[in-house]
């Protein structure tokens, strides 16, 4: 189908974008367009005005502030995939990126757009949460930073308010103690995940500490498996069976057209085993 008519404005700067967003109620940011334009074409959405931020300079950088990796909102998936900094210092994100869509979509879709859109089956929101990262936001009331834990609020719902723009995400840079793991199941390469898992923890002797196991595709937002995390923190790798059993309390996936909730929970257990083994022996 073709989109309903809308007005278009190209922002020259961040301030200009915020000003433009304020001119029409329901105005929408246009980043990579890989979710937004698809929704417009299907007439799932009909905003009066699109504010194109692709011309705003300074939002497409990958930087390495002390102990952290900062990825600008307009960094394309393909650019992040080709980045040495991401590969070395944000290995969880580097692991997740090839699973996002297909080359032509990765050439255009942005990291910021993925986080702002917050599809419950998307990879990057889960990675951001697993890494306990944060999000920089600028809006009419100024700048603020929101922790990943407080950012994903509901189905396609985030802490972004009207007229606000996500400008960057930040995650802690990898350390020798950090272990991360990633796995997802999809029917075809590049499809959104049926079920996925992004995980991060600190290796402590033979065990794990501060673990964050975040499932996606199993609820309205990325979901931390807190009971399973607690088991793994307390019992280490020996607690794997118990951690898998704990997913029954942690996850409540609903039936959808791809799989029943029961099947999804089973698959979540399969992924947990794979990812924990990967974290146990990262060199295997």
């Amino acid at each position, binding site marked *: 189908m073709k989109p309903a008519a809308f007005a*278009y404005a190209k922002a020259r700067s961040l301030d200009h974008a915020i000003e433009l967003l304020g001119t029409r109620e329901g105005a929408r940011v246009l980043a990579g367009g890989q979710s937004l334009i698809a929704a417009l074409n299907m007439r799932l959405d009909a905003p009066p005005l699109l504010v194109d931020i692709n011309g705003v300079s300074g939002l497409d950088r990958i930087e390495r502030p002390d102990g952290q990796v900062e990825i600008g909102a307009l960094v394309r998936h393909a650019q992040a995939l080709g980045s040495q900094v991401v590969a070395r210092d944000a290995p969880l994100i580097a692991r997740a990126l090839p699973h996002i869509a297909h*080359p032509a*979509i990765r050439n255009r879709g942005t990291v910021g757009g993925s986080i702002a859109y917050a599809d419950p089956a998307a990879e990057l929101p889960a990675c951001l949460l697993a890494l306990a990262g944060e999000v920089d936001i600028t809006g009419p009331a100024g700048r603020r930073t929101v922790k990943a834990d407080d950012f994903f609020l509901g189905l396609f719902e985030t802490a972004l308010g009207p007229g606000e723009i996500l400008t960057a995400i930040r995650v802690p840079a990898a350390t020798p103690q950090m272990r991360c793991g990633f796995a997802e199941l999809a029917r075809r390469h590049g499809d959104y995940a049926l079920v996925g898992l992004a995980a991060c923890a600190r290796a402590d002797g033979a065990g794990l500490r501060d673990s964050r196991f975040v499932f996606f595709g199993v609820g309205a937002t990325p979901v931390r498996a807190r009971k399973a995390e607690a088991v793994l923190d307390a019992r280490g790798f020996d607690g794997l069976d118990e951690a898998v059993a704990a997913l029954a309390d942690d996850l409540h996936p609903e039936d959808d057209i791809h799989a029943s909730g029961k099947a999804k929970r089973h698959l979540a257990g399969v992924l947990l085993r794979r990812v924990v083994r990967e974290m146990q022996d990262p060199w295997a």
Partner: protein
Amino acid sequence: MSTAVEVTLMVNGERVSAAVEPRKTLVDFLREDLALTGSHVGCEHGVCGACTVRLDGAIVRGCLTLAVQCDGAVVETIEGVSDSGEIADLQQAFERRNALQCGYCTPGMLLTAAELLKSGEVPSREAIRAYLSGNYCRCTGYHAIVDAVEAVARARAGQVGVGEAQ
């Protein structure tokens, strides 16, 4: 209401200026305004890859890019890369191996394969399949397409002639 916006861009090496409605996608602009009908329209929501074109040197979905976003951009379509001869070897390999039947997916397949082969390396069959995963073909069953892309990669790397790699 939306008013038309003036854009100027390079399409297949030619400078084009036009007034476009914001809601017009790049692929519709190419097909309807410029009569470049080699880029096809399938699903119109990013899934099938029939609309693949190059924007500033990288392949994109023509159905998920607005024409108004292309002001100042360089666009290349299957017509452009055919005329320049850039992918003549890929086109010959597709024909020789029956990697196209109805041809609907072919322009997108060729541009996607061309991007994969740009590095000059010989990708594994698995890597070829992964790179082409966003381009649907309802006719060939993909096998012949993977064969054709692999043969060209090898030929370009000097491993074996395209004609020989049957």
